[in-house]
């Protein structure tokens, strides 16, 4: 017998306000609603109202998790909060969330700042906590309110990103060996390469203030140090170079082949990138989840949202072997194979 960690339940929350392609096409007149959907695979995104923060969405997603899956919040013994903005410089937002969610006091709680790879890193931390006997029920909250940090005139980012949060409960289970087909979170491949290809420069210690006026860089990309900047072509190249190799490595580590995987759930970057990856790796469409048409790219919440939807649709069934992969700001990437 051994203690394994597995994904017990996922719920997610999207804010109610919708930003559709028609509204964007009225602002960016060289694009039509149809051309935006064709380029991105996204028809609409949810956006937060002014003053609504990542932790607010996280609270809503956690409440949904407790209600939808009948989970007793007092069983949570570790809280991980992944976001790119926090309520205060200090204290840690996860500590604020302990109180807001009325969790027990004898729990561990911490924040970590990652974007599109955040869910995979959260699973790796949760697995480590569980397998080492430190915790038994880890509540992982991955939340994004990136639309708050986009310049209103930056069409490259405004057409892609949407806000949302996911709550995932990762729990301990006693398994007999071999654990092959029993629910568990398997091996990981993680990677990091520090670059400024995706960056929001200001608002933190290194650049509390900077160049406020937007400007165009060499590639004609829109830049403002007060807002998120993304060098889209470089990100695409990075994804093409890194992700297929990472997938092969995680399969090799797990002693599996592509054909052994029942479902592939990647970070929902945009429709074009996902399709390029799927084709490059030769994954059949029926095994590849694309879920962003009505929510856009929700950063660290995108994988659990897509996985939860695949569960509802019966594609991610109990016992299914699912390959999860995240990649983005950092640059940071990670992949794992889980059995649900």
């Amino acid at each position: 017998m051994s203690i394994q960690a597995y994904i017990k339940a996922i719920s997610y929350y999207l804010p109610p306000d919708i930003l559709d392609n028609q509204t964007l096409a009225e602002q960016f007149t060289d694009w039509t609603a149809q051309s935006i959907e064709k380029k991105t695979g996204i028809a609409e995104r949810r956006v937060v109202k002014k003053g609504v923060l990542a932790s607010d969405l996280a609270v809503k997603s956690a409440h949904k998790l407790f209600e939808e899956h009948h989970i007793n919040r007092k069983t949570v013994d570790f809280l991980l909060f992944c976001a790119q903005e926090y309520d205060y410089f200090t204290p840690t937002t996860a500590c604020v969330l302990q109180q807001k969610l009325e969790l027990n006091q004898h729990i561990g709680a911490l924040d970590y700042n990652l974007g599109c790879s955040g869910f995979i890193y959260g699973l790796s931390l949760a697995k480590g906590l569980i397998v080492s006997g430190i915790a038994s029920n880890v509540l992982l909250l991955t939340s994004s309110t990136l639309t708050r940090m986009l310049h209103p005139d930056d069409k490259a980012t405004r057409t892609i990103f949407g806000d949302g949060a996911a709550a995932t409960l990762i729990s301990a289970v006693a398994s007999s060996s071999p654990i092959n087909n029993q629910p568990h979170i398997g091996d990981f491949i993680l990677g990091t390469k520090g670059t400024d290809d995706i960056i929001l420069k200001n608002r933190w210690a290194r650049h509390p203030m900077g160049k406020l006026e937007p400007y165009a860089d060499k590639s004609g990309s829109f830049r403002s140090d007060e807002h998120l900047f993304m060098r889209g072509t470089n990100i695409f190249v990075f994804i093409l170079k890194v992700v297929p190799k990472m997938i092969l490595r995680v399969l090799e580590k797990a002693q599996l082949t592509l054909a052994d995987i029942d479902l592939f759930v990647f970070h929902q970057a945009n429709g074009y990138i996902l399709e390029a990856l799927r084709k490059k790796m030769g994954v059949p469409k029926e095994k590849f989840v694309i879920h962003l048409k009505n929510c856009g790219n929700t950063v660290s919440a995108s994988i659990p949202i897509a996985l939860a939807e695949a569960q509802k649709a019966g594609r991610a069934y109990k016992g299914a072997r699912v390959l999860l992969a995240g990649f983005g700001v950092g640059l940071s990437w990670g992949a794992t194979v889980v059995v649900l």
Partner: protein
Amino acid sequence: MQLTELVQKIAEEFEDTPKEQITAITKLKDLEEWSSMHALIIIALIDNHYDIILTGEEMIDAQTPTDIYNIILQKQANK
């Protein structure tokens, strides 16, 4: 790999531009249909057909299919 083959493949990726309008010396970014998505499409195309991944900077500097062809040849030679 032939330059004419590359020109043809690039031309196929433009939906609204007549194929004959795209030649080896066409400045792709001057085409009315050009958008930043075409940079990604061309990078994916070259990756798929020639197993070479152009960088973002190389795509910014390359003006014509001939420029792209020369970058591919150089990268193949350095492989």
